């Protein structure tokens, strides 16, 4: 780390467009801060270091030993301190989380949720969430319930498009059952009379739900899994390679626009069963906000192409310990994500 005075010299030199110092001067200036060549443990320098060790036998074995022991001690100490700090922060967040959970409870009332989002400056049009399948026996039921809750909150908040990513893709195999569960949940929020209609689909699967949108707070729900990520791009490459081999396409025709159009086609358009009007409710291809319900921000195979400008928010590591995997999907986590997206601060009063 160059000292302040030499840093000033370098800056002055930058201002003078590089005339103040010759390369030799700069090297002289930097020399004290460069590591000793003998310290470099790269394989490249193996030869030279062997030569060196031959010429002068190992100089400071004791000093090296003490140094490494000090480093080991420092590692232990920093991790102890860091661990304590992390635990304290986690405890603080857990308390805040519980308070928020009490203050902001939705009570299954759309009006309350609507009131919570009313003050927000902007809302995502297309919300994405990453959920994890737990390891208990009823994991699938829990997961489906979480999807249903999220869908209900979105309808209340006025978010029209939701995509749910779950790595294994287990949700895709039970779309009709999931549709049933979500519909029941929606009815319990909105009442059966003004229940919003739901379109549920997955790439390469038919749309499940009414084909004609009826009410304003309809929701389109897309299920994604890890096969919609890299695999889709690989599949596209295969198709393009085949076309190119048959002379139907030249490699120069492959542009970002083409790839974008093709990938958007797969994930973003609800493929209607009758195919009559496909442009009715187009899903915005790129999600505006990605909520990660997990201890830290890891995308876990979420389709990469669509993520270009997506804001990401991780609900964070609060309920540390006992279960270890996955984070409960709770309303305050959802709300904090929306607050974050709107650039608002969370408040302890409604």
């Amino acid at each position, binding site marked *: 780390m160059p000292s302040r005075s030499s840093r000033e010299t370098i800056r002055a030199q930058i201002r003078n467009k590089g005339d103040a110092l010759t390369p030799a001067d700069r090297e002289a200036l930097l020399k004290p801060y460069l590591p000793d060549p003998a310290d470099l443990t*790269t394989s490249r320098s193996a030869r030279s270091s062997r030569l060196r060790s031959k010429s002068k036998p190992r100089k400071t074995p004791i000093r090296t030993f003490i140094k490494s022991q000090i480093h080991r001690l420092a590692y232990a100490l920093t991790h102890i301190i860091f661990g304590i700090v992390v635990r304290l922060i986690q405890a603080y967040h857990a308390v805040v989380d519980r308070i928020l959970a009490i203050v902001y409870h939705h009570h299954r009332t759309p009006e309350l949720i609507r009131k919570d989002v009313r003050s927000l400056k902007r809302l995502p049009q297309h919300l994405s969430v990453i959920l994890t399948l737990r390891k208990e026996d009823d994991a699938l039921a829990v997961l489906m319930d979480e999807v249903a809750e999220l869908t209900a909150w979105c309808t209340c908040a006025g978010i029209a498009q939701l995509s749910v990513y779950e790595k294994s893709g287990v949700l895709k195999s039970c779309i009709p059952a999931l549709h049933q569960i979500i519909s029941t949940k929606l009815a319990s929020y909105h009442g059966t009379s003004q229940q919003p209609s739901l379109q549920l689909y997955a790439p390469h699967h038919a749309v499940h739900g009414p084909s004609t949108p009826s009410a304003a707070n309809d929701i389109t729900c897309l299920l994604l899994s890890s096969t919609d990520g890299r695999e889709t791009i690989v599949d596209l490459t295969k198709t393009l390679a085949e076309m190119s081999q048959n002379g139907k396409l030249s490699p120069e025709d492959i542009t970002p626009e083409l790839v974008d159009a093709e990938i958007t086609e797969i994930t973003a358009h609800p493929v209607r069963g009758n195919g009559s009007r496909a442009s009715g409710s187009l899903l915005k291809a790129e999600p505006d906000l990605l909520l990660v319900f997990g201890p830290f921000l890891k995308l876990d195979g979420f389709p990469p192409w669509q993520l270009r400008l997506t804001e990401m928010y991780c609900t964070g590591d609060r309920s540390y310990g006992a279960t270890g995997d996955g984070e409960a999907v709770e309303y305050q986590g959802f709300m904090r994500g929306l607050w974050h997206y709107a650039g608002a601060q969370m408040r302890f009063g409604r």
Partner: protein
Amino acid sequence: MTDSIHLSRLRKWFLASPPIEFAITNLKELLIGALRQGPIPQHVAFVMDGNRRFARSHGIETVEGHNLGFEALARILEVCYKSGVKVVTIYAFSIENFKRSKFEVDALMDMAKVKLSQMAQHGDLLDRYGAKVRVLGRLDLLKPDVLAAVNKAVDLTSRNGDRVLNICFPYTSRDEITSAIRETVEDYSTPLKSTNGAGRTPFSESHITHNIRAQNLGTKPHDMSSDSDSLSAESSTNEDDPILRNDYPHRVYESGSSFSSSTTLHLGQQDGHPQKGATQGNTSDPAFISPETITRQTLSDHMLTKGTPPLDMLIRTSAVERLSDFMLWQCHENTEIVFLNVLWPEFDLWHFLPVMLGWQRRISKSRQNPEAEGNFAGDSPESSEEDLDARALRQGKVKGI
């Protein structure tokens, strides 16, 4: 107000005084040495965001902000390489950035040129201490003089050690993915060279066809089909009609061999003049590698980051929480993404340390308990049970929590 200015001056003076500076330097060395004791990410990416905002908030020129950003980069590179990170990837310039004001783009280009040519001036120094510099991106969008500086720096450092600095300079990830697809398609649509096709596979396909044909001629076709029908549909297509079967895969889906359908028709010639048969097949109907052999790995190998370890950590400063078209392909699986609320010119070891410590904690935890969330199975060496126990014991001792 004046108070705070005086205080900050006092603080600066205090921090710049030799004993304090010495102590801070040593403390940093100690912390980096301590970091080395634990697991270290092999590949870290940075989005250097906030130079302009820093300049605006401190009332200095934008260009000056970028210069300070470069200093921060040098600082953090030092920390990374000293602590054992193998590859650092930085997002220096996006293709979209060409839309910024001409003055700023020119200044940035100028800075890149100056820095790169300075690097080139220190050729031997870089040889001894430096890392390999690689520039990723659309180099064709650069001006010739900048491109020359880039090439010179890359050439000079190409023989350096195992540390790599990837500079993404006119880069966007979508462009990278598209180029990877395009290159893969180009690779797969160049016909296979027919030098000595027989050496590619241990079995000669023409020989197999010959055998099947001989078998089929020997057995009664009706018996054959009824037999295979009762077994399975698949086997019937396999053995039933060799000519139809062979015709299809030979034309396009030839995997690994350059024989084509025409060679099967001249079986007699084939034995006598294998070379001739192969070339004949190639000119009339070129053989390709089957597109079905394209995998994620194929595409990864065509990405600009090929040959580097998987991305372990991506850090973006200045509290902007999106990727902005950076490393989409590389970071969407096991990478830990960290958004920091600090402007890039202020970024230092003190911000980097908690991130590294958190990563080390998580890694050692996932190694202790591979079932837990956040399991980076990729880089944890598989260990026997007692080894695991010993490590758990050690870690328990080390962390004490």
